[in-house]
């Protein structure tokens, strides 16, 4: 019996999904649906800008927020993308995404190309095409200074804890050597922090990261020699031959005219394998790694907390405010979806005919019982397979709204359940229709009961909205993680972001309390004489 019920529920869910989701299809946004014959470079030229995907949370020296002025993105790949776009005759516009999802976002049509330390590897070519490499990096091993037992060779890694980036060549290499690999999504700073405090025994990462995060830490030591090489290439949409050819041509020219050599030298990244790769002129021997020096000066030695508060944080406030605004707008709209749909589900479940009740129960169980991240991923990356491509904003609002509708439905059901059945009977004997009885008698009483849990849910939603960073939206949490990585400051900026979240949620908690008091006082008010 139970099993049959489950099967029926599951069956009912399918048309429900079809009903709910494409019912909200935004036709005008389907133009970015991934067509097999995409020509990204032509699109970029028509638009006048090249949208290049990256994750600033990855940090220096690739793409990161200038620690001295976090409103600007800097990095050798920012310079590279600008030079590339210029060769293609357009402006460069960076678009944010989660690093390990950048190629999926490219396939979905959110970017024209990806420039963010994408390693040349077979598995990446399954999702996207890769240009000729524009940089070769050695892999470097970093250990704690003075750690006598530190692993200093690949074979010594067996059984030791090693930190690196997820999906990287370093991770695969270390796994092959039998190391216990720990990967980090947060930012490169975290990887070296964990090494310093002893959570890992060594870090294996590309030379640029090592130079900017490992080598500047006086407690760490970079082991001499290369542990392998990785090449970085530009990701272009799969099967897009025109874009691939245009990007390759542009890289060729940038290599030959010395632009790339000068650029790498400025960031302190010029090396022999890259010289061999590019085949062009070397940078002049007088070249100064000014960008690297600036980074060292900015973050090499952490400032005292109070100096950070007075000197560094004011410049971050605008970014935090922008992130907070996005979090708030997405949350409010998602809550509007959740409240409306939740109310409909609760009414269907409590007062609807049997099939509608089953549908409502199925919906609630499905959306309550599966992770929000899975739902968001399905809405954003899965629906395009059915021809529905939503903008990140709309996808975020819908996924959050659909998920929280399940919770709201249960709140309202509890509220409706708290209204005695005699109340509906009384309304009916007075001649009110069922709908009017609900609207004027049952719902006002139910809402009073449902208000506290609903406020609670809104505050939870406000925090869960941080998940929309996986669909390229830079909301409050993403703003924090990016800044923390760029400024090498997790604790201080963490306090700042906490204040912003409290600033968003406390007013709602207060509002809810005062509404409750007002509703409650009606009932408790003593009889007027």
């Amino acid at each position, binding site marked *: 019996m139970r099993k049959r019920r489950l099967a029926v529920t599951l069956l009912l869910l399918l048309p429900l999904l079809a009903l709910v989701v494409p019912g909200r299809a935004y036709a005008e946004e389907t133009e970015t649906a991934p067509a097999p014959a995409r020509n990204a470079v032509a699109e970029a030229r028509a638009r006048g800008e090249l949208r290049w995907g990256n994750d600033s949370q990855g940090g220096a020296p690739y793409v990161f927020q200038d620690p001295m002025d976090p409103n600007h993105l800097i990095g050798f790949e920012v310079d590279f993308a600008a030079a590339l776009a210029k060769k293609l005759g357009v402006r460069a516009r960076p678009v944010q995404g989660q690093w390990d999802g950048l190629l999926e976002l490219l396939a979905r049509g959110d970017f024209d190309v990806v420039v963010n330390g994408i390693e040349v590897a077979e598995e990446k070519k399954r999702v996207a095409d890769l240009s000729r490499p524009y940089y070769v990096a050695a892999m470097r091993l970093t250990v704690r200074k003075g750690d006598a037992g530190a692993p200093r060779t690949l074979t010594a890694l067996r059984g030791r804890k090693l930190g690196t980036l997820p999906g990287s060549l370093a991770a695969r290499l270390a796994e092959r050597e039998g190391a216990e690999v720990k990967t980090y999504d947060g930012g490169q700073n975290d990887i070296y922090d964990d090494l310093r405090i002893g959570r890992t025994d060594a870090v294996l990462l590309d030379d640029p990261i090592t130079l900017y995060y490992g080598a500047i830490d006086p407690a760490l030591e970079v082991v001499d020699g290369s542990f392998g090489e990785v090449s970085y290439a530009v990701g272009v949409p799969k099967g897009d031959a025109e874009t691939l050819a245009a990007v390759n041509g542009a890289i060729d020219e940038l290599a030959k005219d010395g632009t790339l050599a000068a650029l790498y030298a400025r960031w302190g990244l010029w090396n022999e394998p890259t010289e061999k790769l590019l085949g062009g002129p070397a940078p002049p021997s007088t070249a100064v790694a000014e960008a690297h020096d600036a980074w060292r000066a900015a973050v090499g030695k952490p400032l005292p907390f109070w100096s950070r508060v007075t000197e560094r944080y004011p410049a971050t406030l605008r970014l935090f405010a922008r992130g907070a605004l996005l979090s708030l707008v997405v949350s409010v709209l998602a809550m509007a979806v959740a409240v409306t749909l939740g109310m409909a589900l609760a009414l269907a479940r409590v007062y609807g005919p049997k099939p509608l009740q089953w549908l409502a129960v199925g919906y609630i169980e499905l959306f309550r019982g599966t992770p929000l991240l899975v739902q968001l991923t399905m809405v954003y990356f899965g629906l395009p397979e059915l021809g529905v491509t939503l903008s990140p904003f709309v996808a975020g609002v819908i996924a959050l709204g659909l998920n929280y509708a399940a919770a709201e439905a249960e709140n309202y059901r509890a509220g409706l359940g708290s209204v005695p059945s*005699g109340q509906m009977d*009384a309304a009916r004997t007075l*001649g*009110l229709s069922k709908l009017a009885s609900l609207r004027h008698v049952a719902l006002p*009483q139910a809402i009073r009961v449902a208000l506290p849990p609903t406020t609670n849910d809104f505050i939870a939603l406000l925090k869960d909205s941080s998940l929309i960073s996986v669909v390229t939206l830079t909301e409050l949490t993403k703003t924090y993680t990016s800044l923390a990585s760029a400024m090498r400051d997790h604790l201080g900026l963490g306090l700042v972001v906490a204040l912003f979240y409290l600033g968003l949620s406390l007013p709602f908690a207060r509002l809810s309390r005062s509404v409750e008091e007002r509703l409650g006082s009606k*009932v408790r008010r003593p*009889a007027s004489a």
Partner: protein
Amino acid sequence: MSICVTDLVKRHPGAAAPALAGLCMKVPTGKIASVLGRSGAGKTTLLRCLSGLDPFDAGTIDVGGVRFGAGAKHGSFGGKIGLVFQTFELFPHLSVLDNCTLAPRIVRGEARARAEARAKDLLAELGIEDKAKAYPEALSGGQKQRVAIARALAMEPSVLLYDEPTSALDPALKHEVGRTLRRVAGTGVTQIVVTHDLPVAREASDLVFVLDKGRVAAFGPPDEVIAEAA
């Protein structure tokens, strides 16, 4: 207006015997009828069918010459037959005045000012005009009952039903119920009172019906019927 019930049948799903098995009763205009009977005799079922809360299976209900058959939908006599619940079921989120104006405004589309003026008149008639702005929780049992009566009367019903009107009241207040019934009868409304309370039935009603097994077992003036039953 008079109410005439003919051969009313109601079966509850799964029950062996019908709750109402061809019940007949007639109450003339402006009269007060008490309905007595043991638990399970069909009193509550009769009220729910008469008030339109539950459908019935056969028979007719005739209110002032308008006849409703078994096909009549829920609430189709809404307004013509009112019901005062045992637990009153006042709307706790609305003031006394709003309790009395909700249905006239929503169902009959009456303007607020007119609905409120009529409601205030009704509350004054029942002696609780000073409670118009109070919320139900602040009222005593007797006051709640009179609000419930005013709320039902605001829809200008021809027939008003009461479910155990004395059960939620202090003994001292019980004689008040009889007075209230008389006051309402003065306006020409026909009233049917389901009760266990013999003294109230004897004092307040013109007619008494005794139910048994879904039928009227006895009826007549209170003195005769109640003397027989006792």
